[in-house]
């Protein structure tokens, strides 16, 4: 009975998987009452590549490239996430130099990821220009990556117990040069967006997410911090060298889309702070653990199960590894933050306009390599 009534009144609209604002391959089944969104049903899986299962079929060291391709915008953080788990399972300690190098790289990639988000968010709101401003900076980061690891996005830079290439003075100089000019450019983009009245009217009080609801849904990362919960794995359960650098966890009481925007930009400023400290603290030493040198790499065996969590640009990234004593992991499971954050979209976009729904889905920061895995 009710269904019949629904059909007469509402329009069903299929947004995606090929649509300009679905960030890749998200498909949204919308139920519209005119312009008002009555119901959203995200349909995912269009980029499912079975990454977890493939990881189980390969050696421990080979899983990295699949993790690169999960959150391809923040590949370094994915590698850090996997290695936190794998090194715990395989009992391999990375040398001190490697820890600091990884910290720098992870933060650089966090910058790149947030920049991409800012550009795409501008596009979602119908603003093309900031996209190019942020991509100029992102390109500089990717140039640094090219120089260090020979690859731009899916870097495959880190390895178990080390990194593939050592930092040299030239790279350190270049990173310093980059962080010197970056905050000014960041402010430029920030002012272009956040000081625009239309931008504020589009984002303020849109998609309000109460902290209790956010916690219930398992939302993490900037989304959660924008709701006023100061939870960041880097502080709560420090990994790498985060307990030895000085930085703040930006939170906002706004709870809306604008708050998420502000939090992400503040996070970028904090990341620059971390990089500036970490780059000076990189100690001398080997850049890989001899226990995991190349000739031994395929013979690494792990037993037991570990769960390691890290703070990826999207939120809490967890990796669960089970080893059965062989050279391959028995089970690899990933808790991907984008996936958990996406689950809040139907809740947030009840009875909002289509334009608001796009702004909300833009504010989640979705990367589909990671949602679908």
């Amino acid at each position, binding site marked *: 009975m009710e269904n019949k009534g629904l059909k007469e009144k509402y*329009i069903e*609209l299929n947004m995606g998987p090929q*649509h*300009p*604002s679905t960030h890749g391959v998200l498909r949204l089944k919308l139920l*519209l009452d*005119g*312009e008002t969104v009555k119901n959203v049903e995200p349909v995912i899986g269009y980029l499912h590549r079975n990454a977890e299962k493939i990881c189980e079929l390969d050696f421990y060291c080979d899983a990295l490239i699949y993790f690169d391709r999960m959150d391809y915008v923040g590949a370094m953080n994915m590698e850090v996430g996997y290695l936190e788990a794998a090194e715990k399972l395989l009992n391999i300690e990375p040398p001190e130099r490697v820890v600091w190098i990884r910290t720098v790289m992870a933060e650089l990639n966090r910058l790149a990821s947030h920049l991409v988000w800012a550009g795409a968010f*501008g*596009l*979602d*709101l*119908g*603003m*093309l*220009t900031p*996209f*190019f*401003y942020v991509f*100029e900076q992102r390109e500089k980061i990717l140039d640094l990556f090219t120089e260090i690891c020979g690859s731009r996005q899916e870097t495959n830079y880190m390895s178990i117990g080390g990194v593939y290439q050592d930092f040299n003075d030239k790279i350190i100089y270049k990173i310093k040069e980059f962080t010197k000019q970056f905050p000014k450019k960041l402010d430029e983009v920030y002012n*272009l*967006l956040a000081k*625009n009245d*239309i*931008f504020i*009217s*589009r984002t303020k009080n849109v998609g309000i997410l109460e902290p209790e609801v956010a916690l219930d849904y398992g939302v993490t990362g900037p989304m959660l911090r924008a709701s006023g919960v100061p939870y960041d794995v880097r502080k709560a359960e420090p990994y790498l060298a985060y307990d030895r650098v000085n930085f703040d966890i930006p939170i906002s009481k706004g709870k809306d889309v604008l708050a998420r925007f502000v939090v992400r930009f503040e996070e970028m400023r904090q990341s620059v702070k971390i990089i500036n400290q970490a780059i000076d603290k990189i100690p001398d030493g080997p850049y890989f653990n001899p226990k995991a040198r190349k000739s031994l790499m395929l013979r690494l065996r792990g037993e037991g199960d570990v769960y390691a969590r890290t703070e990826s640009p999207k939120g809490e990234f967890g990796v669960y590894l089970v080893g059965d004593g062989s050279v391959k992991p028995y089970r690899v499971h990933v808790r991907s933050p984008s996936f958990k954050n996406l689950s809040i979209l139907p809740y947030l976009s009840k009875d909002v*306009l*289509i*334009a*608001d729904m*796009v702004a909300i889905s833009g504010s989640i920061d979705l990367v589909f390599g990671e949602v679908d895995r």
Partner: protein
Amino acid sequence: MNLLLRISSILSVFGHYPSFILAYIIETLMVIIFATVVVAGMVYLFRKYMARVQMRVGPNRVGKAGILQVMADGLKLIQKESIMPEGRDDLAYKVAPVLIFFGLIMGFIFIPYGPLAWFGQLTVSHSDVSLIIIFALIAIMPIGEILSGISSNNKYAVLGALRGVAKDISFEVPMMLSILAVVMMASVKVSNPLDINGVVVAQSIPFAILEPLGFFVFLISMAARASYSPFDMGESDSELVTGNTTEYTGLRFGLFYLGLFGTIFLGSMLISTIYLGGYYGPYTNYAGFIWLLIKTVVLVVISLTIWLSMPRVRIDKFVTFGWKYLLPISFINLIITGILIFGGIA
């Protein structure tokens, strides 16, 4: 002496009436060519300017500095296969882009272009009520938008068309009210205030100075009419793909594209004609047309800057803005104009 008379005197060998008809046809063709060339130039300007703003190079491969890129794109659009959606309302689907083009070109015909050196007055056609005619003709274009939206059997297109309607009705009333204030102001000085040429003649002081509120309302209305960002809710690409033009390809899409850029140019021309003194400037009798063009291009560049630096307004916010702010403002403008006229200031 105007251009029409000159052409007809050249053609007078064909007889009196045929030469007039021929002269009209020739001048109308000239206007169409003018509009197309101007729009092509604008697209080039837009792309170069946009590239400049966004720290890119812009078109630079076809021709010197990419000048021929627009032509290449146009040719591509013309020779492209026209893919039409199934289940469309055929007539409406095909008529819609033509209506848009028609409204645009007809809008250009009544604008007083002013004198240019030997050619004399360039105005194609004039009427005692040309101000009303122009806005009536421009009002044809939304019909094209709506038809294209509802005929192409696509939900995005329908939503885009609905947004277009909501947008149009919320700014057209204030726009016409601000025009009414202009007519009142002009009626003090000239006997034909409904003739757009009379409005230009009446501007010994530009109306933008006498009626800043009306100028503001009209500026926003013209931006909304041309529907570029921040007023591009109709074809908002991140929400509705491209709104009412989603199902159009090839030449028909080209006509919509022409309509978008043409409306920006036409709107800028109308603003400069009605509020900024039109073709008036130093050496009006020789270079009036040049003055009009200069004012128009400055306004076009301002429009493009707004386009490139603003996010999209949400449709309900714009409707609220139209009825809650623009309409009262235009009424206040009307009252102030009346006071100015009675006080003998204007």
